[in-house]
């Protein structure tokens, strides 16, 4: 059974001159090796939560434990365990990319030789080799984000907390980042906590999700379970040879029709019967959609 990486208990935080708490009595656990996503609208309290988890912000009430140790009383353990990528800011941006990675890896406890190897590996992994000798302040926003991610990963911390890691990235780099994170999680059992607005793409990697609104969790669980609770129905898009309309099981009727495509909504349990009834010599394509993480997010946030 996996160990608990983070245990957050009754965490509350209210900023001065604010009436509404940024975090309001939050309690949850994140298991070791899990990829945990935090979704929520702007101002929902996600960044406040993770800043407390990395010990940059002092909670008003409640406790945060990292592998059983209180982060408030074990700051050294937190810095050796967690790599943090903030939402904004650009630390070490006057160093070259290679220097920033090397020095961060060394400051996280690697020897000079290991830090150099780690630097080269991360440059290759995140496709930064071509800009290794450029200072971050001369890079594009997307390149800078990739450098910040690499800096968070330097020294291979067992926990990564990433605040909107794919912001400003182009689609190819976004996809690459999700692949890198999934690979890091699978190979090294790295626990990853990520805040993202990129719900559709993040769905490929997120194992459990917390959706926040006004400082509280409005949903917390595995995306599949949450989706079933929100919408047990499946949407089907059925394409066929024009004029050869497919036969459907009793009780299923299209809610929209064109000459060669029907749109249907079915219960999860009706899917096998639907597939069995179809004549695939005339059906040219079939697409089955369940609710996406984005649907889930919109459902809870709106």
């Amino acid at each position: 059974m996996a160990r608990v990486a983070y245990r957050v208990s009754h965490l509350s935080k209210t900023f001065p001159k604010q009436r509404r708490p940024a975090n309001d009595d939050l309690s949850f656990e994140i298991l070791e090796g899990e990829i945990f996503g935090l979704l929520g609208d702007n101002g929902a309290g996600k960044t406040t939560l993770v800043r407390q988890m990395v010990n940059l912000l002092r909670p008003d009430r409640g406790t945060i434990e990292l592998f059983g140790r209180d982060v408030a009383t074990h700051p050294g353990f937190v810095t050796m365990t967690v790599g943090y990528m903030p939402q904004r800011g650009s630390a070490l941006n006057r160093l070259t990319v290679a220097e920033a990675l090397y020095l961060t890896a060394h400051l996280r406890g690697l020897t000079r030789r290991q830090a150099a190897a780690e630097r080269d590996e991360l440059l290759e992994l995140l496709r930064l080799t071509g800009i290794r000798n450029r200072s971050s302040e001369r890079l594009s926003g997307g390149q800078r984000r990739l450098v910040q991610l690499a800096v968070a990963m330097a020294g291979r911390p067992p926990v990564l907390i990433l605040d909107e890691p794919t912001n400003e990235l182009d689609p190819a780099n976004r996809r690459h980042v999700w692949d890198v994170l999934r690979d890091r999680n699978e190979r090294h059992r790295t626990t990853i906590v990520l805040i993202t607005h990129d719900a559709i793409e993040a769905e490929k990697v997120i194992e459990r999700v917390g959706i926040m609104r006004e400082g509280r969790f409005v949903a917390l669980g595995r995306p599949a379970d949450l989706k079933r609770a929100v919408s047990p129905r499946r949407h089907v898009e059925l394409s066929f040879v024009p004029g050869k309309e497919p036969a459907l099981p009793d009780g299923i009727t299209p809610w929209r029709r064109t000459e060669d495509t029907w749109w249907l909504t079915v219960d999860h349990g009706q899917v096998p019967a639907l597939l069995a009834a179809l004549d695939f010599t005339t059906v040219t394509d079939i697409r089955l959609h369940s609710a996406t993480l984005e649907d889930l997010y919109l459902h809870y946030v709106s």
Partner: protein
Amino acid sequence: MSPETSAQAGHAPAAERRPPSRRAQFADLLLIQLSNYRWSWRGMIVTGMAVPLVNMLALGLIGRPYGPEYLVHVLAGSIVVALLFQNQNNVAANFAYMRAMGTLDFFATLPVRRYLLILATVIAFFLLSVPSILVTLLAGVLVLGVPVQLHPLALLVLPLCAVPLAGIGALVGVFGRTPELVGSVTLLITIALLLLGPVVVPPSMLPDWVVHTGYASPASYAASAVRQVLFGPVTGRLWLDVGALAGLSCLTLWIAGRGVQWRER
């Protein structure tokens, strides 16, 4: 790198690793802060060299008839001008920049001690100010004809002169709300430190109240110490200057250290 090759390379899991020694932390932080030459070299030329040179030439050439003691004051004061701009103002700008860019937060998430960061910053900017000091000194010797009587204590005294000025810079940088405000405040402090005390002109040419105000100013002690170790003679007054500079260094760095919030409330 696969887990196998990772093990071959000797990577212990991060949580089981020991944080780097203080010496290693300091060396890395010093390297990081020395990289500031990439932006500060322009300031090094303009405010670190040009302003002290203009100050020295203007006051020195106009006041040449006042004699050698006056010229020594002007040259030592111009070196303090270089120290002020290169240490106080640049350290303030650097802390303000680090706050604005999230660099202080970044260091707070690393196994790094904040007093080592402050120390590395102060020493890095002192090292970056050495060319300005040398250029000002050389120009003073060549143009004003002031003879140098270098005392070995200069190696201790010159860095010590820079520390309280850098400490004031760290204070302003840490507590200033915005980089713009920090820039304005450090400029005001620079002007005040230069004018309120016998920094660039001898005390005999200043009103008493200005001379007395100078007792509270690190720039006055720095100018006095610089005069003695670079141009002689070294007197008992040097120990008062060194004591005052050391005390002000400890005070300003201690307050700045308290002000660097590793953990926001």
